């Protein structure tokens, strides 16, 4: 079974670029370019990993992250979240991200191929709760 990725990213070129490489590496990628829609999708569908941009239309990435980690708002969401952004946040926000998300990556520092390599390593090392749930039911 393919690993399912949700990529919440509004910049179409970047979304396409990363999606191409990830699909080639046998990931199933869903791209959503809007904050509100992205949150809805993450809450409804079961994804193994969520890649999240911070600067998004309609809802900022930080708000999405907070909503996903709030058990009342997203009771069924347990997947790891990787922040993938070019925004260099201040330390306060970074601290919060470190608590809520698994990884903070800067797009400019990581090429699509490097990201895929990273994801493969990440997949093996981090138990993904979201992926285990369907198997149990």
């Amino acid at each position, binding site marked *: 079974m393919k690993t399912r990725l949700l990529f919440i990213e*509004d*910049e*179409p*070129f*970047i979304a396409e*670029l*990363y999606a*191409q*490489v990830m699909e080639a590496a046998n990931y199933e990628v869903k791209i959503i370019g809007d*904050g509100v829609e992205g949150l809805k999708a993450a809450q409804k569908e079961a994804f193994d990993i969520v890649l999240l941009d*911070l*600067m*998004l*239309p*309609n809802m*900022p990435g*930080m*708000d999405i992250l907070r909503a996903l980690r709030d058990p009342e708002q997203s009771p069924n969401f347990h997947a790891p979240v990787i922040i993938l*952004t*070019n*925004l*260099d*946040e*201040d330390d306060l*926000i970074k601290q919060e991200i470190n608590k809520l998300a698994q990884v903070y990556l*800067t*797009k*400019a520092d990581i*090429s*699509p*191929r490097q990201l895929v390599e990273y994801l493969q390593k990440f997949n093996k090392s981090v138990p993904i709760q979201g992926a285990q749930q369907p198997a149990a039911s």
Partner: protein
Amino acid sequence: MTSYPSKASAQPAIRFGLRFKFLLLISLLFILLISGLAVYLVQTGADNLRHNLEREARSFATLATGAIGDTFVLYQDSGTGRIDREVVRYASLDSVISNISVVDLSGKLLYTKNRARPPIVSPASAASFQPVYIKGPSGAVSEIIYPYFETSGAHRYSVIYDISSREIDAQVQKEAKGVAILATAALLLTIVATYFLINLFILRPIRQVSRQASIISSGNLEQQIAINSHDEIAQLSMAVNTMTDSLKASIAELRELDKMKTEFMMIASHNLRTPLTIINGYVESAEKMTNLEQLRKALERISISSKRLGVFAEDVLTISRFELTGDTDLHREVIDLTDFIHNIADEFGRITEQQDRHFITYLDNRSRKVYLSKPHIRSALWNILDNALKFTPEGGQISLKLTDNGQQTQVAVSDSGIGISEEELPKLFTKFHRGTSTMRYDYAGTGIGLYASKLIVLRHGGEITVSSQPGKGSLFTISLPLVVVDQAPPNPSANPPGGVA
């Protein structure tokens, strides 16, 4: 919280302070007043005293003459020793009588107590039946010649009293000394009182103000000086409070500016990284591409991104040049705007085609001469077109329209994008258009492009406006003044049209 370094310098030591100055002033005034008063008092006191002593001497003469005359008549033949004894007894009753003598009616001296200084008497005054008062050079009575009548009524002798002015002077001096001592005591008392009053009413409130001012200068701007009076100290306190308030306001302003600058740097680095990410990503994937169509697409994206990077760099340069250096040299030239817009439309049309947006142009071929700087106006318009592209979903529509009214020409860009909310509209053309909370990023306000566009258009004497319906789209309009044919451009001396621009 940032703490501002306090440069609370050590207070200079007080030399000749307020206390010293006040005391000096008051002492001088007091001494002047007291010495005037003392001179007056001594003068009048001396006059009175002299007068009183003289009157005493006269009364003494009236009362003593009989007794002294009797004694003289009684003892004149038994030698002066007896007379002396009696006379000394009488003379001791009055302090100013320095000598007592007896003369006959011709003025011949028959007896004198002080033989060293016998009196000088004229026969007329010696024979007078009335007492004669002889005044000395100072105007005071120095000698009294009093007639002595024997019990038979015969007038054979007169008694002479010498009045000593030295004795009077001594008395006056004693009085003056008393006044001087009193004045000195009063002066000392005044100085002490002034010292404490200055402390209480001036120095203590001033020290309080200065203590609180140094608390303020150490960085605690919440400190306010309490005002308990209505005097100059209160005014000083109020001035310091006002100064603190305005300092607080300036610091808040600076902090806000600092925050905005930090945010600007964050946005700027984001805007630099994003096209770079795309360029690097496509370069990396292009290495493995064999499909020519795919490769062409990758190159196009690289080209669009590098253009975006260029525009962004241009915007930053524009802003820093216009804002920081106030550079007005735009290298303008008179060009045909219609041609110019046609070229930009062609370029933009290719991009919209690749990105699945409909691009509709309403352009004719009428010549419109505008005095402008090509690269600047190009980036001003490009920012607006790029913005429309960013916020218009795939399949959406962007249109470009060029019109004029004979004096102004309008370039209008409309889109069917997400639109701009009413509260966002006024912030649209500001440099750091961002949400108020640092935790949230307003998606639309991540650029400086529209701000740069506004600066450029304003420099051209034009205007930029926007209207929008959220959810339906936005309309941006750039107005620029037309160059009327046969008329010189607005500023020909600075930038000759068609010259070496």
